[in-house]
Structure formats: structure tokens, C-alpha cells
């Protein structure tokens, strides 16, 4: 158990579509840190941030900013410029992890299976004709399909397409959030989220949390309405499958070059085979988020974990 002296800034908000989620996550982290005696300031990502940080450099920053800027490394790049220690992955690693197609390539090289997928920008559909391109995609990947923005979170712009007539509309919904779409084969199985934390002794997996949305799809409402989704921790899986999920999450964390904290979203099929959907560098910390649930299941205190992560960031050698 480490001590943190000096104030910590929890960064939350920003202008991404996940602003609201981020504010809730930030509040939870800030409260948890305060409960273990850390002095905390909460700040939004806006024009006042840099002057405030520069005027009074905190001991460390805990970024809990979701979506672009928060997870694509931009905010952290700025923290590097300021030379202030912060919790979480470095900017280059964030960029790799946040871009789902890039991350898929990286983890595939590390031997982690991910759903077969096609990544295409809006312009390709415009230039080559949407019908023809979509036909090829369906011929290759089959149905159902999952359409999602290549970069994004909280399932915003994500659609599960079971019927081919719904595909064009799903593409449109996706492109409204960003100009590159990832179309994946739908993987049936149990969805689990596996947190990975590293407070100095190397990345450790938290117990997998199994996610069972009431109406089958873990969309925005299912994520942030208490009671819309059932969670089980540890997941109701065989000992081997649990181990495989944990190992996959740690391997993905290492392969992407992440640091301190991450969360891998996985699907475990009925044979116990694990497929990685994606890895988050700023995992949700809200009341309905899985990482804090997993911490609770280990009988550890969430605030103590946050404090240990901050302490590890502070004691990390500066470059």
C-alpha cells in the first residue's frame, strides 16, 4: 500500500459523445480517492485545463476521459508535454488500442483471435457503390453482423444486423459517429469484461465479469440503466475458460504496450474459445461499469486501488 502526497487531478468530461459517462466515471474515481485520504480536484477537458495545471502542477493526473481525445492519446500527449505523471497508457499505445482495426492487427500478431472483420471508410461505399460492397461483405462474413465505428465507445453507433435489409441503415448510423466503419462477424457466446491492473508488480487480471443484457444487446441503454443488464462475477464459466479469458486480457494489455489499467471485452463461445472484441485504455468507472465490480469481487477497496495506481504513476521514472 502506497501513500500519495500532494493533490491529484481527476480529468473527466470532454466533448466526445461519451461526455456524460466520463463525468460519472470521474466522479466515482474522485470520491473513491477522497475516501482513502487523497486530495483530489476534478477538472473538465476545456480551455481552462492547461492554465490551471501549469499554474499549479498536481502530483499526478488520473484521466477518466472516454471517447476521442481521452482514449486516442491526445489528452495524454498534452500531459506528457507538461511533464506531469498520469495513470494509464502512453499516447502511442492509446492510439493503437483506440483504433479498433489497428488493435485487432496488433493482438492478432500476438496470437489472440478476434472476430473476422472488414474495415472501410464511407468514401469507399460512395465511390464503388454501397450495394455492391455490402453484398461482398455479407458474402464473406455472413449474418448476423456487427457494425460499429472504428473508433468510439459505449456501443454508440453500434448495430447488430440480423437481417440484410437493415444493413444500409446500420452503416448510416455508424457513419454518423465517424467516417470509418468496422463490420465484424457476430460471435455468439458469453460476453465478459476483464480488467487488468498493474500497481507495480506487473499486469494482473481482475476476475472476469459476465455481462447478460436483458434484451440481448449490450447497447447504450443496457450499459447505463441499472437493472437493464445482469452481471456475474466471476463469470459463470469453466475454470479453464476463466483462465483463458484472464490470460487473453493480460496478453492483449502487453501486446498493445498498455500501462497501469485496461479492460478487455471478450466473447467466450460454447467451446470455451475466447475472442477479443476490443481493449479500453480508459475503462468506464460508473456504477454500472464492470471494472469496479470486479475490484469489489476481489474484496479489495476501489479507492485503495485508485490510490495505488496513482502512487505507481508518481514513482515511475521520468523520461
Amino acid at each position: 500500500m502506497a501513500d500519495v502526497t500532494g493533490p491529484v487531478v481527476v480529468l473527466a468530461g470532454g466533448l466526445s459523445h461519451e461526455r456524460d459517462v466520463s463525468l460519472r466515471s470521474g466522479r466515482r474515481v474522485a470520491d473513491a480517492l477522497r475516501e482513502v485520504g487523497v486530495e483530489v480536484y476534478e477538472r473538465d477537458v476545456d480551455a481552462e485545463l492547461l492554465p490551471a495545471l501549469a499554474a499549479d502542477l498536481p502530483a499526478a493526473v488520473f484521466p477518466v476521459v472516454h471517447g476521442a481525445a481521452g482514449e486516442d492519446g491526445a489528452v495524454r500527449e498534452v500531459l506528457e508535454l507538461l511533464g506531469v505523471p498520469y495513470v494509464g497508457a502512453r499516447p502511442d499505445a492509446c492510439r493503437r488500442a483506440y483504433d479498433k482495426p489497428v488493435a485487432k492487427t496488433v493482438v492478432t500478431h500476438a496470437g489472440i483471435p478476434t472476430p473476422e472483420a472488414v474495415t472501410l471508410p464511407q468514401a469507399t461505399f460512395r465511390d464503388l457503390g454501397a450495394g455492391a460492397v455490402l453484398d461482398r461483405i455479407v458474402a464473406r462474413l455472413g449474418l448476423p453482423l456487427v457494425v460499429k465505428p472504428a473508433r468510439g465507445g459505449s456501443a454508440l453507433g453500434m448495430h447488430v444486423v440480423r437481417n440484410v435489409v437493415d444493413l444500409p441503415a446500420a452503416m448510416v448510423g455508424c457513419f454518423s459517429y465517424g467516417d470509418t466503419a468496422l463490420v465484424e462477424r457476430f460471435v455468439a457466446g458469453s460476453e465478459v469484461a476483464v480488467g487488468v491492473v498493474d500497481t507495480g508488480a506487473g499486469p494482473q487480471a481482475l476476475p472476469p465479469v459476465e455481462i447478460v443484457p436483458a434484451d440481448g444487446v449490450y447497447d447504450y441503454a443496457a450499459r447505463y440503466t441499472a437493472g437493464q443488464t445482469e452481471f456475474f462475477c466471476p463469470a459463470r464459466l469453466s475454470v479453464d475458460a476463466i483462465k483463458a479469458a484472464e490470460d487473453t486480457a493480460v496478453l492483449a494489455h502487453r501486446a498493445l504496450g498498455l500501462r497501469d489499467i485496461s479492460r478487455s471485452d471478450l466473447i467466450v463461445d460454447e467451446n470455451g474459445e475466447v475472442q477479443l472484441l476490443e481493449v479500453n485504455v480508459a475503462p468506464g468507472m460508473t456504477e454500472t461499469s464492470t471494472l469496479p465490480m470486479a475490484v469489489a469481487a476481489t474484496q479489495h477497496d476501489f479507492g485503495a486501488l485508485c490510490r495505488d495506481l496513482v502512487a505507481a504513476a508518481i514513482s515511475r521514472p521520468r523520461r
Partner: protein
Amino acid sequence: MTDESQPHHVTVDRYVERYAARARGMVASEIRALFAVASRPEIVSLAGGMPYVSALPLDAVGDIFDDLVGSRGAVAMQYGSAQGDPGLREQICEVMALEGVNGHADDVVVTVGSQQALDLIGRIFLDPGDVVLAEAPSYVGALGVFASYQADVVHVPMDDDGLQPDALRDAIARTAASGRTPKLLYTVPNFHNPAGVTLAASRRAEIVDIARSAGVLVLEDNPYGLLGFDQEPMRALRADDGDTVVYLGSFSKTFAPGLRVGWALAPRGVRDKLVLAAEAGILSHSVVCQLALSQYLANHPWRDQVKAFRELYRERRDAMLGTLSSVMPAACTWTHPTGGFYVWLTVPEGIDTKAMLPRAVGARVAYVPGSAFFADGADGARHMRLSYCYPEPDRIREGVRRLGAVLEEEVEVRDTFGTTGTPARGLDRPPPNL
């Protein structure tokens, strides 16, 4: 200690099994998440319906409160009645007289904004499955109330002159054919929210006649009536029929929504029930807010303030309409409000304004998708509500320019995919005060 290795159910909300059926629809929504971004200053929000209260004489209002608490604190800070302060009710009658309404203070019930009046009416009139007639589109806050009482809303078409009498007859007949009688007609006759149109004077008597002969109570919701840019206030529906019409008024737009003072003027029997329902709901109104408002009406040139608001909003409307005509893609059309806060924009065929909202918020402009103004959320895809009440004229112009660019992009997406609608995801209603 629990056994760590045993899977167990994680309880996020231990009352999940206990909520009433009507709470089932109360879920997190993408639309609300997007509006959390839209409230940031970096984004031009053409979504919010917030009056521009900075234009009020705030120092003078401050003095009123000071004086009130200092000199009459023991009254101002005490419980009051559920019907509202008698003096204020007299003054409310004077306000309504501007629209030809000859009401008696005894028949006025003060409410917590018009929203509480809607809720009270719902409470005393609506059983699950009852039919409410409402304009197409209709105010989102009213739809929310009707939904909470599990009523069925039947939308009645409008044109540039407001509610169409023939369509109203039709809707009543169709409802009757299905074995039901509509209980209420909910209408916003002046500077409609969200449609921006006004019910023509020539239609007013006819609409009330149709309702009267069908035994339908008319809910005349009139928060914007005094905010006409080019003309004197129109004669209220209630002015010519005190039995068929319940009139809802509000100081939210003519003074300040922060006071939360509105009112209902109702036929005696209805009034009695409203007072009892209000008593059960809130016991008493904020006395200090009512007395402050009463002082303001008595001692300040409040009509001049309303005139100042009208001029301010007229300038903003002009900024919006002017920019719309220079930047909107061909095939967009919009209403030309002569008062109030809102323009109703119709976008090219095949574009779904709800699906487009994330793109708009990404481009730092926000609006309310048309589907919010229909009870089942299924219609309205080709429309959006734009409000010009809050942003300064330059920001309005900038916002409309951004929106024009977003629409151009969306037209390209439509041309690529032949549609822009997303697969149905159920009702996703924004907060009513937007």
C-alpha cells in the same frame, strides 16, 4: 466473506424488481448523452428552449427578494395554499385579459410552471388507455406527461395555419369508430412548440365547436402568446368558451422559468379537482416566488420587459431565417414563426434527423430530432426543431452554417446508402426543458 471463486450475481440496483410498471421506460438514452455534450459552450445549441433571462433587470429582481424576505419574511417563508396566492391570481387575470380572456381569480390555479398543470390534468382525467388528441408534432413535455399516465396519443395534422379542423373531425371519428372517446385535445395555438406555426383566427371558433360537440375538453397551452413579433396578442380559445377550454399560462417565457410559476384557468368542477390534486402532490407553492412575482408585476413595467424580449427574439429569428435561406441544401423547407422560440425544419427525403444527430454534435451544433415530438417516436424523422431563443444572433448564424454543412454530408450518405434511418431502437425522448 464470500467465496471469491463462486460466481455471484452483482447487484447494481437492489430495487430493480420493485419499480412500478410505468418506470419501465425510464432508461438511459443515447439522445440524452448527446445533449450532455450539447450543453457545453463549445457547441452551438439550437436545441434548448431556454429563455434569455440575462435580458431581465436582475438587480431589480434581487431587490424585490431582499425586500420581501426582509419585510414580510414570516409570510414569504411559510407554507401557502395549493391554489396559489390570491393577489397573484388577480394579477394573472389581468395578464389573460390581454388575450381577451375574462377569467375570475377564483378559477385560477397557480401551478409549478405549465408542466405541473399538464401533470395535474393528466392525473384527474386520464386512465390508462384513454385517448388524447394532440397536434402532429406536439410538445415533448406534454407527450411525456400523457405517456406517464399511459394514455394513447392520436396526432392531428397541422398546416401553416395550425391545427386542421377537418383532420380534427376525422381523428375524433376514427377514435369513436374504435369504440373510444377522446378525453382531451391538447393544443399550443400560438407560435407552436415545436412547429412554429399559429392557429389562424378564422379557425379558432371552429376548433372549439368541434371539441364541444364531441365532449372533448380542450387544453389550450399558451406560454408564448404574448411573444408575437408583428401583431397584437391573438384572442385565446378560452376567451369565447369557458366550459370547453382549460387555459394554461406561464411566466416562464414572459418573465423567468426559474420562479416556476404558471397557472391553469379552468371550469369550476375541474378547478376543484385541480386544487385537490395539487394539494396531494405538492401541498403548497413556493410563497416567496409567488410574492416576488406579484411585486414584480405590480411595480415594474413588465409589459415593457415583454416588449424587450419580443424585440430580442425577433432579431434572433431573423438571424436564423436569414441564414437558413442562404445555407440550407435545396429541398429543405422550414416554418416562418411570427413569434415564440422555434423553427420546424423539414430535411430532404430519406434523411433521418435522429440518426444524423451524432454527426451534428461532432460538428458542434445541436438540434432536437423531430421524432421526439411524436408519441410513438416513429414519425418526425424528416424534421427537426431549431430554437433561436438562447444563442446570440452571431452564434445562431454560425450554428445554422454548421448545420447546413452537416446536412450536405448527410445528403451524400443518403445518396450512397439510399436511406439514412437507423434500425428502430424504441422511444428515445430528450428532456422536456430542452
